[in-house]
């Protein structure tokens, strides 16, 4: 059973390696958006420090959302998605493989790069650590929830914008807990409550969303 799951992940990772530009665009977008705010607001460190949690989290969220349309669109276009729907393995499991590969390509790099940007925002070290933890716990939920939006808007005209419209309201809890965690640690409070809530969001998403994404894929493939 998990042979199929590994195969799906391996295929997507192979494709991602062969086409590094996709990974790069997600990262560049994250960096660019995060660097715009000091230009737009002010380079003054104290102000940037208060801005940092929200800005970095919104940038990470948007970066992840941008790469969502690629999640199923290519498979839908070349027929691989049909074969996955027809595979004996449960579609939910294969969807999990796809989302995990997407997270590796778009979620993990953002988590690894975030501390570097955090330094740009004059964030203290322990806040940087909490930032990494919050992104590590939060980005899986972003990919999982986003997969539903990607599956619902497959092959629909204007799907890039539509995914954002469908998915952003559902991202609000993750954003609140994520940026809240970093803000709390910056102001000396304990971020444990936030991080556990964030983890809860990801686990809930892990439990519920693959089924919804699989159902959406079956609707799209019809």
């Amino acid at each position, binding site marked *: 059973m998990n042979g199929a799951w590994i195969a799906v992940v391996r295929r997507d990772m192979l494709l991602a390696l062969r086409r590094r530009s996709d990974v790069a665009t997600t990262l560049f977008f994250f960096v660019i958006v995060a660097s715009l705010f000091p230009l737009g607001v002010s380079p003054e460190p104290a102000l940037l420090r208060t801005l940092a949690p929200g800005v970095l989290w919104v940038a990470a969220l948007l970066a992840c959302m941008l790469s969502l349309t690629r999640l199923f669109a290519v498979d839908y276009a070349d027929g691989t998605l049909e074969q996955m729907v027809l595979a004996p393995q449960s579609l939910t499991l294969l969807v999990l493989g796809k989302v995990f590969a997407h997270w590796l390509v778009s979620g993990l790099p953002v988590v690894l790069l975030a501390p570097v940007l955090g330094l740009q925002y004059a964030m203290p070290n322990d806040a940087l650590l909490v930032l990494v933890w919050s992104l590590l716990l939060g980005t899986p939920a972003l990919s999982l929830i986003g997969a539903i939006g990607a599956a619902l808007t497959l092959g629909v005209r204007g799907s890039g914008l539509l995914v954002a419209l*469908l998915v952003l*309201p*559902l991202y609000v809890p993750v954003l*609140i807990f994520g940026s809240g965690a970093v803000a709390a640690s910056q102001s000396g409070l304990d971020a444990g409550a936030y991080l556990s809530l964030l983890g809860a969001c990801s686990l809930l998403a892990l439990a519920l969303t693959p089924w919804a994404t699989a159902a959406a894929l079956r609707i799209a493939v019809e």
Partner: protein
Amino acid sequence: MKIMTGINWFKYSSPPAFYPLAGLLIPWFYTLATVFAAVGLYISFAVAPTDFQQGEAYRIIFVHVPAAWMSMFLYLVMATWAGFGLALNARLSHMMSQALAPTGAMFTLLALVTGSLWGRPMWGAWWVWDARLTSELILLFLYIGFIALQASIDDPRRADRASSLLALVGAVNVPIIYFSVKWWNTLHQGASISMTSAPKMAITMLTGMLMLALAFWMYSIAVALVRVRCIILERERRADWVRQLVEVKF
């Protein structure tokens, strides 16, 4: 391929039976709505006393609170219809959930605007990042997402099922969103500015709001039935029973 006009288009069990039934119910719900509205307005203006703190401005809650209740209630009703539609593969249920969406979005918008109109005289700010108002705003985005998805998919069958699935996913997320927004609101600002400090609920005010809420509810049912009849006419153009309707009418 020649269009098979002669043969009996296979039976749509529910829409032909539902269409005339809805037609009968609509006038009743409209009248009920107007009666409740009249009573509600009478209470909100004539019976409810002037509030010693907020003067007359508080009367806005007679519209704001019922609208907020309805926006939330209609989303849940929409999600239930969507659930039935997906479970029973019934086109009519999908149509019902689509028929409710615009009315729900309207009430959400109404709740937001009346909320800010009430906030301005009371707290001097057009927009207050109060937990409930913020959640209403996000609920509005969920409605718009539902309507946009339904409108942008051409094939009606797929549009039905995709938007119904979105409504279900949204319904699961609404409590989480409300909880996280309340958590966010209480931590950032404390309860200094908050809509919850409305005047204590005198009985008359509560009945006034209930009357208007009932009026809004009857109104929503009537409008949803009218809209679902429109959707049926637009979608079942080729059905035989619709042809007979056209014959009878023209």
